[in-house]
């Protein structure tokens, strides 16, 4: 029996989040490398780069927004659960779903707004304000990706884990 399309989509979403989380880790390693390179070139060779600071900024953006979907998938965001801890389990679950619904709505809206901006930047050929500019829509698209895929994971939490369960309960899954 073939797996439902929703389960396949859900599994693909998980894989995408894990992949981009790995890319975020590589970006973090890149930040360390660039800083050390900059200090070394400046103090040992008196030859500071003109591009490392801006690329550290780009990589930091990548760390944050490429990691965001997987952090949302794992429910690892910083949250204040003072109230939820004091509620009965059933009410706590209801509150968690309400929070996830708000997360889906807000992150989805933010992703839509940022996507629109990325489109406008691409149309107008907006570049980053840097010594070595690059097309800004590339970076804005990463923000939209992080928020958009996070919104999908919030949405999945609202509808419950049924889709994931369906995927994992299939024979051979």
């Amino acid at each position, binding site marked *: 029996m073939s797996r439902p399309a929703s389960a396949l989509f859900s599994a693909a979403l998980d894989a995408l989040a894990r992949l981009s989380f790995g890319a975020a*880790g590589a970006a*973090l390693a890149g930040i*360390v490398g660039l800083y050390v390179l900059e200090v070394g070139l400046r103090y040992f060779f008196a030859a500071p780069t003109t591009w490392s600071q801006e690329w550290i900024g780009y990589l*930091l953006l990548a760390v944050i927004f490429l990691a*965001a979907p997987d952090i949302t998938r794992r429910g690892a*965001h910083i949250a204040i659960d003072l109230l939820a801890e004091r509620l009965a389990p059933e009410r706590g679950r209801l509150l968690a779903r309400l929070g996830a619904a708000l997360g889906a709505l*807000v992150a989805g809206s*933010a992703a839509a707004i940022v996507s629109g*901006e990325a489109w406008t930047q691409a149309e107008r050929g907006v570049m980053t304000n840097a010594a070595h500019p690059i097309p800004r829509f590339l*970076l804005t698209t990463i923000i939209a990706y992080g928020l958009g895929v996070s919104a999908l994971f919030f949405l999945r939490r609202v509808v419950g884990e049924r889709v994931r369960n369906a995927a994992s309960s299939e024979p051979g899954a």
Partner: protein
Amino acid sequence: MSWPFALGGATGLLAAVMLAGAPVFIAFLTLNLAGLSLLIGPRGFGLFANSLYQTATSSSLAAIALFVLMGEILFRSGAIEILFDSIDRLIGRVRGRLYVVTIALSTLFGALSGSAVAVAAMLGRSLLPSMAARGYDRRLAAATILSGASLAPIIPPSLLAIIVGSMADVSIAGLLIAGVAPGIVLAALTLGYVALRVARGAPAGRVEEGRPPAAGSAALAEAAADRPQAPRLTVARALLNLAPFSLTVFAVMGLILLGVATPSESAATGVVGACLTAAVFRRFSLAMLREALASTVTIAAAILLIICSAKLFSQLLSFSGATRGLVELAGASALGPDLTVLVMMLIPLILCMFIDQIAFMLLAIPIYEPIVESLGVDPILFWTLFLINLTVGSLTPPFGYTLFALKGAAGGALNSADVFRAAWPVVGLFLTGMALFWFAPGLVLWLPGLL
């Protein structure tokens, strides 16, 4: 819309969404999207996207991720365990020595990790049960853990100091270095309190012949306690073990003080220093590095996402007129700088019992910054006191994340009443220290003045 109504509505909405358990970054995004819609409309959407972009590409914030990575490498490599053994050996076999070890270790851990909650949880699980088993007073032991861990936001490298510095337009290097002396004074106050309690008969453990336990894990600690003939480090060996670790400390603090590296760069050199330290101890591996990177990305991205989401709030506050209104209110009040600062310190003390330190900082800094400027108070002094105050808020009973972390980690070793009773003296010590720093500002401002 009048600014008190806007400000009240904004903080109310933020508190409601946070208390409902939604992620903090979602609470800020909700607030900002609602604020934009009400104050500016769709024309402000560009401002929203730009705010996320500008904050996320701010390279000074990279230090947050790098400091977390440095701590992760030291913890995961086991280099810290070697350090524990060395410090424990050097302090000697005096009565109550593990209280001193706890203060030293939690202070060091706090400085390196920047997280009071993480240190309280780690030592609560590892050191506390062993101390209780060795005849130490559990509450006094818990107090030393709470005190040392709570120095995390104060002693450099401090993540919170970097966030405050970047948001309040204060020298990050100055703010980091300013935390050194207050951190030492607060640790000394705690030591004095412990010495007084031990002198007055508080249980202070047995003098043992065996090797003191490593603090890295409870299992190790208990195994060491049951191992009377375990090989004991010589003083020379203990000193030798400390040498590689000083590489990391120098790579961070030394390079900032020498003017070789900026705080962000020193965080990166600190990562290299941590890798070298682990390598000298033969604890470095690519698998460990991969785990450290993955854990760091989770922690750092979650924090940075909140900062990115919250940045627009300060702009909206200005747009609504709230910032100007608050400044005028502070300027018009007849309280004077001392009482105004006292009021400004009472607010985080109370609020940080309930809400996350970072979330509160992001809310308060845009409001406080112009008031501090109008009062003419030295910004380094004010924000250092503010950082100490944040940490006091999170260890003041009955709420506070540091308390919850210690209680959860200690399990059956401590009940809530024990934790609360352990916390009150620490709160008192920190408030005493704050008063001291306010009336003797040279303690805070001397080191930054040398930069």
